[in-house]
C-alpha cells in the first residue's frame, strides 16, 4: 500500500506518480475538496481517497479502480474509458459526463446532468439524480434507485435508463419503454456488479423514441 498525503504534497505530484509508476494499492489522505485528484490514470491500480474531493476527480480514467470515501464535486469520472469509480457520499453535477466505458457507482445522490452525453459507460446511483440527467446520452446504462429530476433523457440517443423511483417531466424524445426479461437480467447483473441492493421489479426503463434524429437501428454498429 502506497500512502500519499495531500496535506503534505500537491495533487500534481500525486498524479505524476500515478502516471509514472501506477502499481498496487494507494491510499490518498486529506483530499479536502482539491480538484483533479487521480485524473488521467491508465493502469489497473486501486486507489482509496479518504475524504471529499473537488472537481474532475478520476477524469478520463482508464482501468483504475478508484473509491472516494466522501462526496465529490462536479465532473466526477468525466470521460472515463474503463475501470471503476465508487463514491460513498453524494456527487455534484455532470457525474460521468461523456464517459465511454467503465462503471461509476454513486452510493448517495447525484445532482443535475448525471451521465450527460454518456457514450457507453454504466452509471449506478443508489440515491436520486437531478434534472437533465442522461441529456443526449448516446450509449450505456444509467440506473437510478431513487428518483430522477425533470427533463430526464432529453434528446437521448441509444442509452438505456432504469429508474426505480419517481420521474419528473421527461425530456424531449425520451419515453418509457417495455421492461423485458433481458432488460431485467441486464439490470440485475449491473446492480450486482455495483454492490447496490435494489429490487429489479421496481424499475422502469426509459429510452429514445427516435423521433429527433435520422438514425437507423439496423446500422447501429456503423455509427
Amino acid at each position, binding site marked *: 500500500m502506497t500512502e500519499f498525503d495531500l496535506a503534505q504534497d500537491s495533487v500534481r505530484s500525486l498524479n505524476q506518480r500515478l502516471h509514472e509508476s501506477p502499481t498496487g494499492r494507494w491510499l490518498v489522505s486529506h483530499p*479536502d*475538496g*482539491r*480538484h483533479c485528484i487521480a485524473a488521467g490514470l491508465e493502469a489497473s491500480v486501486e486507489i482509496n481517497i479518504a*475524504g*471529499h*474531493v*473537488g*472537481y474532475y476527480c478520476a477524469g478520463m480514467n482508464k482501468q483504475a479502480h478508484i473509491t472516494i470515501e*466522501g*462526496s465529490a*464535486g*462536479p465532473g466526477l469520472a468525466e470521460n472515463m474509458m474503463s475501470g471503476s469509480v465508487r463514491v460513498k*457520499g*453524494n*456527487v*455534484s*453535477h455532470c457525474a460521468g459526463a461523456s464517459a465511454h466505458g467503465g462503471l461509476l457507482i454513486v452510493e*448517495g*445522490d447525484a*445532482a*443535475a446532468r448525471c451521465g450527460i452525453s454518456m457514450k457507453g459507460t454504466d452509471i449506478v446511483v443508489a440515491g436520486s439524480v*437531478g*434534472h437533465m440527467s442522461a441529456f443526449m446520452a448516446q450509449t450505456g446504462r444509467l440506473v437510478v434507485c431513487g428518483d430522477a*429530476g425533470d427533463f430526464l433523457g432529453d434528446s437521448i440517443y441509444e442509452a438505456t435508463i432504469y429508474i426505480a423511483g419517481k420521474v419528473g417531466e421527461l425530456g424531449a424524445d425520451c419515453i418509457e419503454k417495455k421492461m423485458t426479461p433481458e432488460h431485467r437480467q441486464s439490470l440485475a447483473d449491473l446492480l450486482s456488479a455495483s454492490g447496490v441492493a435494489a429490487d429489479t421489479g421496481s424499475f422502469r426503463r426509459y429510452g429514445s423514441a427516435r423521433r429527433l434524429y435520422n438514425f437507423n437501428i439496423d446500422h447501429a454498429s456503423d455509427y
Partner: protein
Amino acid sequence: MCGIVGIYYKNKDLNKHLGTMLSSMLVQMSERGPDSAGVAVYRNAVDSSSTKITLHAADDDYDWNQMHSLLAKAFSTDVDIEIRVNHAVVATTAPLPEFRTWLALNCPDLRIMSAGTTIEIYKEKGAPRDFVDRFQLQDIQGSHALGHTRMATESAVTTQHSHPFSTGLDLCLVHNGSLSNHNRLRERLQEEGIEFQTDNDSEVAAGYLMWRLHQGASLEQALTSAISDLDGFYTFAVGTRNGFAVLRDPIACKPAVMAENDDWVAMASEFRAIAQLPGVEQATVWEPAPATVYSWGEA
C-alpha cells in the same frame, strides 16, 4: 466566476470562532475571485432603540474622530464607533433617515455599507488573503456571516462594486452568477421606493428581497417568488438578523455545495472552502437542489 461562502452557527458557543472559520473559507475561494473580497458579519447586536451603521471611507487616513464628534454633537447623543481600516461601525440612537441626510451634508465622502442592529459589512479591492489580514478578520466573533470573492464581469472593479450588497436593514446577499433582467427590475423597484447605490446586478437581487420583505413576506417566501421574478444565473447566500438562506436558479449552472452538522451549516462555491472547518468530518455534504430554498434560523 466568483466565490461565495456562508456560515451559520446552530450552536452559539461557536460564535467566537467565526473570524477564523470565515477567513479560511474566504482565502480558499481566492482563485474564484482575486479582484476583491468582502464579508457581512452578524455580531454584537445593539438594542432596538439604536442603529448600527457600517461606513466606508475611500481614504485609509480618514479623520474618524472628527466625524465622531460632529455626529455626537449634531444628534446630542452618545455614539459608539469602532474603526477597522477604512471602515467604521457606528452605533447611534439617531433615526436612520436623519442620519443619512446629515451624513450626505456633512461627510459626503463617506458611504453607508450596511445598517441594522446586527450586520456589519467590510469589503475592499484586492486579494482575499490581503483583505483578511488587513481587516484582521480572524478576530471577529459573531453568529453567522457571508463572504464573497469577486472576479468582475458585469461591472467595474471598485470597492463600491464589491460584494456583499445590503439594501435593507440587516439584510445581505452574496451572489455567484449574472442576472439578465436586472435593469428592468431595478426600474420597477425604484418606483417602489427601493434605493440603489450602483448599476450592479446583484444589488438588484438584494433590493428585490428587501422589497418583498417590506411587503410582509418571510425570507423564505421572498426567495420563492425570486425564482419566478429573477432571470439569469445565480447561487445566492442570504443573511438576515437571525436567519441564513441559500437559493440556486432552476438551471443550477453556478456551483454550490452545502455541509451541515449539529453545530453549524456552511455553504460555498466549492467544497475546499468547507474542507478546513472544524467538525467537517461529522457533516453531511450535499449539493443544494435547483429552485429550492434552504433556510435556517428566523428566515
